[in-house]
């Protein structure tokens, strides 16, 4: 049983989807519990795999699908390989998906009451796709899983409003371009190496002369492909509308995970397929890419400043954050890479938390604009606690995880001497500070005089303390966000702080993956 | 001789692709795309990829064309470009 954990991570959502397809249409009430159960099992399996990874002496767990045996230590069949990086991603994806399912209950029933089974089937398939991407060690399998997650993603977005459908179509076009480029790149790799197993590609590539054009083209195509899919500026056009107009639960799942998984692919390709020596030294693109990411960060921050729609604002922040991670990964030192991976985790949680908060706020106030935040500290104190923590993390204040990811990224930037990147990071932190304090301020002030009520000390205290208790506050319907929404949000908010406080443990795990980078530095 | 045949199909493919994109009638465009797919099958079969050719004939040329035509009937036939 234990050794089957890696495959269970994927099988649980898959079987869940099948089960819903069979039962869900006749009994829509079953969809939610089945999905929760499937995600909980998947999450447990992911944590189990993580433990296995920690326990294994080599730091990797290998699982051969269908067990056809191995030739020269390479699996004939598709191989699942879990190292520290993918294990962290698996835990992240499955837990975010699990919490989001719980969160989605109310919103799905509100937003798409007629499509509940459709939603959950697609949801489970999407999660299965994302988990597959992180766990597989086969380049073509990776492509297929990218497409599975994309296809379900398109559909999930299109379930939403009128605008969502249009943005979903744009996403289809851009997503297909990106995935096809990736596929092409894998083709070039295959021409050169004759294998699709990523570790095998790596070992064969080491024997190939460095200046092979096919590999260079392949690498370029793969990078362009993932950059399109992760919305790396200026290839970001599809993202803001797609995530902003998607149904709440979709946005909260896709915004934190999909771009991050694409960044995971980029890092995986850089570290495990092409190898840092090739990427950083033979190619010599680091300066260019870091400059691009600087532009991405600055541009994303600027766009975010000018948005009045909450979710639009967040999506442009995502564009900037993608720049953080691409830049960090390309700084060509272990600090930058550690920062990129750590930021991968922390940014996913921050974005998740913020999207959940925005979902709650929009669902309660019905207002997607920034003004929806007016006076919310009094009306929805618990939601705002979560929001404040996530906002502080976005700005990068200790002890939240956002601070530490910035710490590693900045340190990497300084070590690499890429001061423009350092400047862009700081600029974006300040922009985030402006953006979020604008909201915090709105939430803090308008409460006192919002509806012309006089301020009384006792009232004030009561709202503060019992704001979320539905019984004591019959008038304050705004406060009655159900616990199925508040609970996951609070868990993530606590997670933001926990991830920050225990950052040295997390970076130690990450260190296992970026260890080969240190070798590179030592050689210089 | 087979090489010449090959080259003819390839050039033909490009021509058909351009035509499929330039006709204003979407139904015609879908049909021409079907022809494009069948030519592709021919090419692949000739290149030794029989299984791919079969699949493309059934799925690419068959199913795609059908769903595309169905969509065109559901929506509108005219295209502005």
């Amino acid at each position, binding site marked *: 049983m234990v050794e089957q954990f890696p495959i269970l991570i994927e099988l649980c959502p898959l079987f869940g989807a099948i089960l819903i397809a069979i039962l869900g249409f006749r009994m829509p009430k079953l969809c939610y519990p089945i999905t929760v159960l499937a995600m909980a099992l998947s999450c447990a399996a992911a944590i189990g795999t993580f433990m296995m990874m920690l326990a294994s002496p080599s730091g990797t767990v290998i699982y051969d699908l269908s067990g056809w045996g191995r030739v020269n230590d390479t699996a004939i069949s598709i191989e699942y390989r879990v190292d520290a990086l993918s294990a962290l991603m698996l835990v992240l994806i499955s837990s975010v998906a699990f919490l989001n399912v719980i969160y989605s209950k109310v919103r799905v029933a509100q937003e798409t009451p007629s499509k509940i089974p459709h939603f959950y089937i697609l949801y489970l398939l999407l999660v299965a796709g994302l988990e597959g991407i992180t766990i597989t060690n086969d380049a073509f399998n990776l492509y297929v899983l990218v497409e599975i997650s994309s296809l379900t993603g398109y559909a999930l977005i299109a379930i939403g409003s009128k605008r969502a459908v249009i943005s979903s179509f744009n996403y289809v076009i851009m997503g297909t371009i990106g995935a096809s480029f990736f596929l092409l790149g894998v083709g070039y790799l295959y021409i050169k190496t004759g294998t699709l197993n990523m570790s095998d590609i790596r070992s064969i590539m080491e024997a190939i002369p460095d200046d092979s054009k096919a590999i260079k083209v392949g690498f370029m195509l793969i990078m362009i492909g993932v950059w399109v899919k992760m919305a790396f500026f200026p290839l970001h056009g599809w993202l803001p509308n797609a995530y902003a107009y998607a149904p709440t639960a979709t946005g909260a799942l896709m915004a934190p995970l999909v771009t991050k998984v694409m960044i995971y692919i980029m890092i995986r390709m850089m570290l495990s397929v092409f190898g840092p020596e090739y990427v950083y030294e033979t190619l010599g693109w680091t300066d260019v890419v870091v400059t691009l990411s600087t532009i991405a960060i600055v541009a994303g921050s600027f766009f975010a400043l000018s948005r009045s729609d909450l979710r639009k604002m967040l999506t442009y922040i995502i564009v900037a954050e993608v720049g953080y991670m691409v830049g960090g990964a390309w700084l060509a030192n272990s600090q930058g890479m550690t920062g990129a991976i750590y930021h991968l985790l922390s940014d996913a949680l921050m974005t998740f938390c913020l999207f959940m908060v925005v979902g709650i706020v929009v669902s309660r106030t019905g207002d997607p604009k920034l003004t929806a935040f007016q006076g919310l500290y009094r009306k929805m104190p618990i939601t705002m606690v979560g929001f404040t923590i996530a906002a502080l993390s976005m700005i990068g*204040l200790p002890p939240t995880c956002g601070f530490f990811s910035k710490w590693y990224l900045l*340190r990497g930037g300084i070590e690499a001497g890429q001061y423009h990147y350092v400047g862009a990071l*700081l600029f974006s932190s300040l922009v985030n*500070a402006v953006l979020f304090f604008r909201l915090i301020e709105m939430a803090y002030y308008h409460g006192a005089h919002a509806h012309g009520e006089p301020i009384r000390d006792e009232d004030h*205290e009561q709202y503060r303390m019992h704001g979320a208790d539905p019984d004591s506050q019959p008038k304050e319907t705004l406060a009655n966000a159900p616990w199925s929404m508040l609970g996951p949000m609070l868990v993530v908010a606590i997670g933001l702080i926990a991830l920050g406080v225990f950052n040295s443990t997390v970076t130690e795990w990450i260190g296992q993956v970026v260890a080969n980078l240190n070798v590179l530095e030592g050689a210089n | 001789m087979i090489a010449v045949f090959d080259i003819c199909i390839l050039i033909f493919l490009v021509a058909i692709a351009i035509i499929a994109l330039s006709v204003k009638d979407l139904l015609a465009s879908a049909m021409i795309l079907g022809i494009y797919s069948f030519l592709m099958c021919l090419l692949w079969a000739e290149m030794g990829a029989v299984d791919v050719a079969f699949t493309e004939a059934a799925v690419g040329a068959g199913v795609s064309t059908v769903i595309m035509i169905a969509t065109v009937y559901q929506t509108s036939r005219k295209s502005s470009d």
Partner: protein
Amino acid sequence: MEIVTSIIPLLACLASLLAVIPIVVFRKSPNLREAATVVAGVAKLSLVLTMLPGILSGKVYEFTFIEIIEGIPLQFRVDGLGMLFALVASSLWILTSFYAVGYMRGLKEHAQTRFYSFFAISLSATLGVAFSANLFTLYVFYEMLSLATFPLVTHNQDKEARSGGRTYLSYLLGTSVGFVLPAMIFCYVKSGSSLSFTELHDWSGVLDPSAALLLLLLFVFGFAKAGIMPFHSWLPNAMVAPTPVSALLHAVAVVKVGVFSVIRVFTGVLGTDFLSTVDVATVVSWAAGATVIISSLIAMTQDNLKRLLAFSTVGQLSYITLGVSLLATQAVQGSMLHIPMHAFGKITLFFCAGAIYVATGKKYISQMRGLGRAMPWTFGAFAIAAMSVIGLPLTGGLLSKMYMIWGAANAQQHALLAVYLVSSVLNGVYFFPIVYRAFLGKPADGEMHDRVKEAPLACVIPLVITATVSVLLFFFPGVFFELTTLMISSKS
């Protein structure tokens, strides 16, 4: 130097943080709530005091939580300077608590529980800064202080508070994230994974003068709480806060955290020895000197008493920065001494401003003519405190200023020496008329002070005490003096 591992620094820091729990629990019964504040204050002070004898005998208390980033533990380390600052902050907190009770009740302020809670949190952050063993720990508590004081600054929740709070946060957060953070990471990278105040000294050969200058400027301007122009304007804007906040936070805790951090940078991070070899600190000296003069001039034009005090504070803070940037031993010691001396003087002045407001509702100096006769205690204390801030004899302010001037003379910086002298005159020019008019001036037309009485006792007693302490410090500066000497001697 004997290092003692002890949990007391942590407890002292936590004392006020834990006080938040009873404060919130007893929100319905104000007496218990405020008693909790006072008890926490006493507990905090006594915890700090228990460490005092040890510190004076040359011990250093240390406490480590966890290693948060490779090579950087979250660590407390109590040395002379930290002790000095902690002593000032925690003793003044008790007095301020009493004062706050009188002030807040006197004005029937709203949201008092929030007020006391965040007040307590701010004090924890302040002590955290005082006890920090490395730059990282200092930074964490520095940010915590910025955030914890935001609700206090914007307490009134009206338009003015809103803009004041916005300025407050944008200046403090903007500079700390934009300047201090990169400078800190730069130090970390260049020093080879350490930020500890005791380990970072040996920069010669690592930093060239231009890098050192850049780093120094990033730090000095980044710690905007020290109020060097042009990053000073958050302080006058923060005066929208209730007076106890202005008094403790913007005369003692927040601003002193700023200069404390600057002193740490000079003595602990870059090191005075290294700085004197690269000769870059004069840039800071001139910036601070300019701030001293300009802020004094601005203060002279102010009619709002609290704004005047704020600009006066800006000037006095730059005294400290100026002193430490002179790098001469006496000047550095004078700067350290100026922390308590100025704190007791300035808090008295703020207490007086608040007491006047509680008793009469007046904020402007022009309305205060003749008030001195109606409120003799308040204005008496005001006069003494003003003397201390100016640096006149028989008050503590004289001692610290003397040391700084001595240091300036030793450093052969005659222009900067003149800055000290000129600004003292300017201080006199803006303080003296207030006192003069209050006692001897006639009320403006139609204003009668007949019915004016002293503010509640809870307001008056603290300000009398602090004024008395200002005087006593002239005669018995012993403890503070020893603590600063400890710092100076441990360096050399």
